[in-house]
């Protein structure tokens, strides 16, 4: 029996962990962390086992499913909505990413959260998240993906708002959920459209479709809607605003959910649907454009942030833009490769940032500095991550970014230019961060910043190693492996690895330039940072960037004045107008009944009472006949008899 046949257990294990940790460790919070690590570790082990079976490449996809909803008329054929799992090469890749990062983050959290009283809740939610995220990548149809899609959003909400006493955390959690929900309803609409077009949600049936060009044009709208879901989840422009705020959550959460896994769900979904997207050039163009714009815009926003985690958050958004761009220009393998590499180096960067925050107690880069001596492991691993992200040759980020740049250039020079500029920005903000945190001398207030415990540094070291070596899979057949998930018609013979020297040169140059400028400005002091804001143009640009280009403000205005104002107006309408009419009718009826009442009392009752009163009066007079003296009655009787006799006589 192949291990893959038990792959349905993979999400079940962490979900069981959720129950055990959530309901079993209230009394013993110490245990919660290690229990969570155990459960996630078990899931990771199984995931790795499954992935290894798929490593050789063209292994047959594995699918099982059960009916979930059955409806329609029994004849000829009822409609069945199923729930099931599908394991192919893409799934295997995602399983490893989620499993590895999830496990390392859980381990890291044992140290990071050691003193938090809410640990059981934290680790339970982590387990829940890992479970549903694994479920998401295993799902065999759009409906199930949507279900898990929402559930990872729920976990994200719960973890961003983990420190719920903090108003900003609570607000950020809500914002994240709502902004992604805008994307979610687009996705929902998209898959409903797809269903009505093809009568199935199943990936395998949908992806094996090969439509005529006219028929394919009907795909564009559903696909754009599906992409809308991805835009929300993967924080692409214009729905990127939630991710930087999401940094209110504990740092390991940022690493796991908001860098390595959940935000990749959008990219994963587009990749999963790639055989459909590939048939709709319009949809692909949108994907590429949004990706490139996001990559550049987020990178530029990262230039001015002072919060160490926000810089990384913008970086994540920007890198997700790269992946989208890659998918948009048809470089499926490159996108997945970047996703794979990025998961490790970005998780590494976040965990390093967490280590720093753990030590100095603040997120503000201005209150750090000089940590290179104090935190040698963190500083070294973070440097590796930064170099990898910046795209320095030899580290993983270089290989995948280079592939993406090459693919962009082959499709559209403008897109290429945008992401090349983004690469320059990336290198700059990463080293700005690194120098501000680790260079020069300490500027903060914490008494004795010191290196983090082993449970935290161990994951850093493992991730650092992964951030270096993950890129070399490119030369060990990554392309062939990942293309195994695509239908036959999209495979163009043997993949060969080539590095375009022109693109590579440009990319390396951009990275080096960025690093050098950052070094000059924030380390050696050869360049005053103030020169960036000198002059009206530069100052204006800077202001715009600090103001996040107005996205937040516009959304806030829309929500506050538009939606809330409308709601308040409608509330007034309901109370005054709708209920006013109702109460008016009520009052009118009461008035009418008052009138009726008056008529009743004065007119109708008047007649009745008049008759009664007359009768009473008459009776009052007549009563005197009743004297009570028998003789009187006798007289009357006699008189009456006499009268009757007289009448009888008279009548004859």
């Amino acid at each position, binding site marked *: 029996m192949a291990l893959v046949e038990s792959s349905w257990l993979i999400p079940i294990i962490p979900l069981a962990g959720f129950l055990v940790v959530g309901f079993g460790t209230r009394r013993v919070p110490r245990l919660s962390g290690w229990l969570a690590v155990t459960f996630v570790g078990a899931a990771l082990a199984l995931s790795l086992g499954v992935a290894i079976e798929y490593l050789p490449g063209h292994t047959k996809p594995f699918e099982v499913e059960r009916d979930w909803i059955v409806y329609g008329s029994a004849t000829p054929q009822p409609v069945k909505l199923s729930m099931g799992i599908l394991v192919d090469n893409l799934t295997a890749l995602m399983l490893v990413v989620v499993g590895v990062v999830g496990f390392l983050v859980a381990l890291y959290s044992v140290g990071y959260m050691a003193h938090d009283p809410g640990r059981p809740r934290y680790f339970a939610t982590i387990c829940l998240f890992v479970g549903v995220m694994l479920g998401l990548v295993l799902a065999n149809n759009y409906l199930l993906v949507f279900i898990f899609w929402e559930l990872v959003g729920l976990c994200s909400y719960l973890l961003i708002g983990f420190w719920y006493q903090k108003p900003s955390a609570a607000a950020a959690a809500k914002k994240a959920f709502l902004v992604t929900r805008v994307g979610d309803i687009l996705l929902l609409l998209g898959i409903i459209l797809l269903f009505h077009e093809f009568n199935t949600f199943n990936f395998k049936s949908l992806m094996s479709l090969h439509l005529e060009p006219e028929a394919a044009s009907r795909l564009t709208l559903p696909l754009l809607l599906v992409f809308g879901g991805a835009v929300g989840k993967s924080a692409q422009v214009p729905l990127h605003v939630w991710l930087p705020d999401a940094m209110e959550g504990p740092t390991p959460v940022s690493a796991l959910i908001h860098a390595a896994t959940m935000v990749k769900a959008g990219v994963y979904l587009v990749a999963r649907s790639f055989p459909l997207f590939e048939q709709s050039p319009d949809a692909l163009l949108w994907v590429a454009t949004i990706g490139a714009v996001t990559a550049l815009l987020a990178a530029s926003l990262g230039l001015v942030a002072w919060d160490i985690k926000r810089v990384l958050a913008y970086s994540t958004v920007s890198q997700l833009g790269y992946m989208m761009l890659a998918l948009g220009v048809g470089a499926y393998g490159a996108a997945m490769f970047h996703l794979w590499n990025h998961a490790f180096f970005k998780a590494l960067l976040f965990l390093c940032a967490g280590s720093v925050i753990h030590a100095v107690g603040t997120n503000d880069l201005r209150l750090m500095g000089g940590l290179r001596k104090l935190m040698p492991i963190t500083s070294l691993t973070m440097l590796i991550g930064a170099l990898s992200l910046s795209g320095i040759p030899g580290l993983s980020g270089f290989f995948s970014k280079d592939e993406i740049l090459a693919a962009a250039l082959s499709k559209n020079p403008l897109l290429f230019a945008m992401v090349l500029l983004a690469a320059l920005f990336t290198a700059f903000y990463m080293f700005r961060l690194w120098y501000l945190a680790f260079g020069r001398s300490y500027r903060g207030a914490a008494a004795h910043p010191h290196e983090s415990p082993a449970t935290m540094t161990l994951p850093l070291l493992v991730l650092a190693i992964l951030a270096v070596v993950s890129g070399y899979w490119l030369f060990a057949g990554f392309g062939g492996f990942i293309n195994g998930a695509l239908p036959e018609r999209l495979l163009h013979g043997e993949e060969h690895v080539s590095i375009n020297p022109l693109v590579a040169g440009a990319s390396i140059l951009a990275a080096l330039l960025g690093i050098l400028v950052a070094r000059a400005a924030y380390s050696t002091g050869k360049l005053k940072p103030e020169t960036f804001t000198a002059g009206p143009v530069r100052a204006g640009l800077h202001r715009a960037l600090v103001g996040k280009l107005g996205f937040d403000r516009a959304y806030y205005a829309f929500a506050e004045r538009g939606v809330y104002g409308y709601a308040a107006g409608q509330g007034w309408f309901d109370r005054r107008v709708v209920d006013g009419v109702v109460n008016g009718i009520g009052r009118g009826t009461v008035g009418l009944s008052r009138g009726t009442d008056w008529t009743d009392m004065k007119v109708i009752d008047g007649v009745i009472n008049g008759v009664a009163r007359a009768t009473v009066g008459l009776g009052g007079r007549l*009563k*005197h006949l*009743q*004297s*009570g*003296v*028998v*003789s009187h009655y*006798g*007289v009357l009787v*006699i008189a009456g008899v006499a009268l009757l006799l007289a009448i009888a006589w008279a009548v004859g």
Partner: protein
Amino acid sequence: MALPLTDVLVVSSLLFTVGICGVLSRKNALIILMSIEVLLNAASLNFIAFSVYGTASPLGQVWALVAISLAAAEAAIGMAIYMVLYRTHRSIDVAEVNVMRW
């Protein structure tokens, strides 16, 4: 038999009239009771007269005897009522005993 029926009837009518007048005009209850006796006697006289002159059947005389015994019973009950009346009202004047009036 020189006494014609008409004379007997006239006597009877006179007796009846006397009785009626007594019942209606007197206030003493005892006198009223006596007047009633006179009325009954007038009736009995009629019964006997018609029995002798008219039908020649003894039935009328039987009824006269019944009426006399009834009158005795009635007198007894009447006296009992007057006794109670006197106890409660200290009087047997029918004009004063007017509790049944409006």
